[in-house]
C-alpha cells in the first residue's frame, strides 16, 4: 500500500495527462461552487474573461453589464470603445494592484496620481487609455467621464454575486511615488515616458496575493457574500522591462500569478481557481492552442477552455429555449398604414 493507491486517475500524470486529450479532459477543473440562475456575474481582467460573457448569456446565466452599448453600434466600434467586453468599460485590468486600485477609487475615495495622459493635443484616461481611442477634448472632460464610470463600477461591485477575474501580468508601470499603477506603459497608447516621473515594478507573489485579498475585503464591505473565480492568462508578455529574456520573464510572471491565485483560493471558500492556464500553456496541449507567434491563444484554445468551464457550470437553458428579446412592435405603426392604404 502507498498513499497514492486510492487516488483517482486525474492525480496521475500517465492517466491525467499523457493519456488524456486537452479537448475532452475531465477532472482538471472541479468547481468549488456552481453558478446558478440567480447569480449576477461580473467579468474583468484580460484574455479568457473577455470571451466569457456571450457564452454565459447564451446558456441562461445573468452577466452584468453596467455600461451597456447602444443597440446599433457595429462589433468593431463596440470593441474599440470597450463596450461589451467586460461588465463595465474599464478596459483590460492586467494586474491585481490595478484591480485593487479600481475598487479603492470606486469604494474608498482613492484618487490616482497623474489621471490624465495626452497624445497629440488629445486627452486620455490614464487608467484606461484604450477605451476612447481618439481621446477627449480636455482633462476636465476625462475627469467628468471617469467620475461617471466609477459610479457604474461601484454599482457593479455592489450588485455582483460572482466576480470572474483573469490575472494577466506582474510587470507594471507606476507613478514615481508608488501610489498609482497604470495599465499601460506611459508613451505607448498615450502619455509620455519620463523616467523621473514613472517607475517600473514587478509584483511578487506576496504582493499579488495581498492585493487580491485586499480587493476582496474591500468589496465585501459593500457586498459581503460575493464569490470570485480566478484564472491566469496563458498569453505571454509582449515585452519585458526586466533585463531578462522575455521567455524567462513570462515564466516568472505566470508562476507568480499562479502561486498567488493558489494562496488566495486555498484559504477562502468563496474563491475558486479555473485552470485555463494549465489547459493551454503547459506540455499537456503543447502549442496546439497558440497562434503562430506562440503568444496569443487561438479560438480553438478559447473554445477548449469554455468547454472545461461549462462542464462544471452546465447550461441553464438549451439554446433553442433562449428567450429572444425582440423589439416590441407597436401595433399602431401598422394601423397607420392600414388606415391610409387599406381597402
Amino acid at each position, binding site marked *: 500500500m502507498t498513499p497514492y493507491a486510492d487516488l483517482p486517475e486525474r492525480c496521475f500524470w500517465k492517466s491525467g495527462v499523457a493519456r488524456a486529450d486537452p479537448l475532452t479532459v475531465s477532472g482538471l477543473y472541479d468547481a468549488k461552487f456552481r453558478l446558478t440562475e440567480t447569480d449576477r456575474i461580473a467579468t474583468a481582467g484580460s484574455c479568457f474573461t473577455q470571451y466569457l460573457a456571450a457564452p454565459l448569456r447564451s446558456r441562461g446565466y445573468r452577466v452584468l453589464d453596467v455600461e451597456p452599448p*447602444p443597440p*446599433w453600434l457595429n462589433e468593431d466600434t463596440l470593441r474599440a470603445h470597450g463596450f461589451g467586453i467586460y461588465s463595465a468599460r474599464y478596459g483590460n485590468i492586467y494586474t491585481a494592484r490595478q484591480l485593487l486600485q479600481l475598487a479603492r477609487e470606486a469604494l474608498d475615495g482613492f484618487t490616482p496620481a497623474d489621471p490624465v495622459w495626452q497624445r497629440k493635443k488629445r486627452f486620455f484616461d490614464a487608467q484606461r487609455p484604450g477605451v*476612447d481611442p481618439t481621446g477627449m477634448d480636455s482633462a476636465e472632460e476625462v475627469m*467628468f467621464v471617469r467620475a*461617471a*464610470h466609477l459610479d*457604474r463600477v461601484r454599482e457593479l461591485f455592489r450588485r455582483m454575486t460572482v466576480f470572474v477575474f483573469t490575472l494577466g501580468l506582474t510587470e507594471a508601470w507606476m507613478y514615481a511615488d508608488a501610489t498609482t499603477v497604470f495599465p499601460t506603459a506611459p508613451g505607448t497608447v498615450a502619455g509620455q515616458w519620463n523616467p523621473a516621473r514613472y517607475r517600473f515594478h514587478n509584483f511578487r507573489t506576496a504582493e499579488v496575493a495581498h492585493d487580491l485579498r485586499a480587493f476582496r475585503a474591500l468589496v465585501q464591505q459593500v457586498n459581503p457574500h460575493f464569490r470570485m473565480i480566478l484564472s491566469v492568462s496563458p498569453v505571454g508578455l509582449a515585452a519585458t522591462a526586466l533585463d531578462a529574456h522575455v521567455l524567462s520573464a513570462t515564466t516568472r510572471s505566470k508562476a507568480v500569478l499562479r502561486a498567488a491565485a493558489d494562496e488566495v483560493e486555498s484559504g477562502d471558500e468563496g474563491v475558486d481557481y479555473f485552470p485555463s492556464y494549465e489547459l493551454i500553456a503547459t506540455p499537456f496541449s503543447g502549442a496546439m492552442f497558440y497562434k503562430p507567434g506562440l503568444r496569443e491563444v487561438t479560438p480553438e484554445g478559447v473554445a477548449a477552455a469554455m468547454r472545461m468551464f461549462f462542464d462544471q457550470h452546465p447550461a441553464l437553458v438549451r439554446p433553442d429555449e433562449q428567450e429572444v428579446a425582440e423589439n416590441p412592435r407597436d401595433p399602431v*405603426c401598422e394601423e397607420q398604414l392600414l388606415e391610409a392604404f387599406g381597402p
Partner: protein
Amino acid sequence: MSGMERICVIGNSHLGAAKHGWESIRAQNPGQQLTFFGAPWDMLSDLALEDGDLVALTEKLQHKLRRASGGLDRICTGDYDRFILYGLQFGPRRVLMTYRNFRPQSFEWRDGLEDLNPLRRERGPMQAVSERLFDRIALAGLRSTLAVRIADMIAEVSNAPVQLVAAPGFSERVLDTGDWDGPLGSGDVDRLAMRVRRLLRKACPEGVQLILPRRHLIRHGLFTARSYAAEDRPGGQPDDVHTAPAYAGEMLGAAISAGREANRSAA
C-alpha cells in the same frame, strides 16, 4: 422635364400620414404624380436590389408594397423622376435615444431617462461619454437607418434626385409625463435640438437633400407640436410617435417645392 413629374415616396408607418397629407395638397401640385411604397417598423430592411429595381425579399413585404402602391410589388427605379424617402427612422429619435443613456459634458442634466417608446418604459443608467463618442454613437444610429440604406441602394442604380424627409420626433405630449422636466429646465433640450440638426445634416448621405420640419411644426426644436401630432389611439391612449396628416402634408409639400426649385436651378 416635360409632363408630370413622377415621384416615388418610400416610407415606414409615417407614410400613412404622408398619404393623407398628400391628398390635402394634391390640388396645389398638379404637375406631380406620387406613388407610395411602405411597410411598418423595420420591415423595409427586407428590400434589396435586383436588376436595378428595389424588390421585396419576403412575401409579407411584397404584400405591403402592393397594398400601398395600388398593385406594384417592386419599385422599378427607372419609372421615377425623383425619390422621396419619408421618415424611415432618420430623425431626432436616434439622437434622443443616445441622450437617454449617454451624456457628454456639455449637457447639464445628469440622470438617466425613461425610454420614450411607450412599449418600453424602463429607465436606463446614465453613462458619461466624450463629446466625440456621443456624436459617434448618434451618427452610427442615424447611418444605420432604413433611410440611409435605401438611399444608398437608389444611388447605386439611379441618377434621379433623392430627398429625405426627416422622421418626426416624439409628440410634445411626452413632456407631460414630467420625465423631461430636468432636461428642459437645464437647457439640455435646446442643446439637443441644435445637436440633432447638426447630426442629421452630417449623417445625411451625400447628394441627398434633407428636409427638416419648419419651426411652427415642432416645439423646443425636437418635439412634434401638439396640434400636429397624431390623434389618440383607439381607447384613448395617446400616439406619441406619429404625426397628423397636416404635418405630413407640410413636409411633403416642402419636399416637392424644394425639388421643383432644384429642377428650376438645374434647368
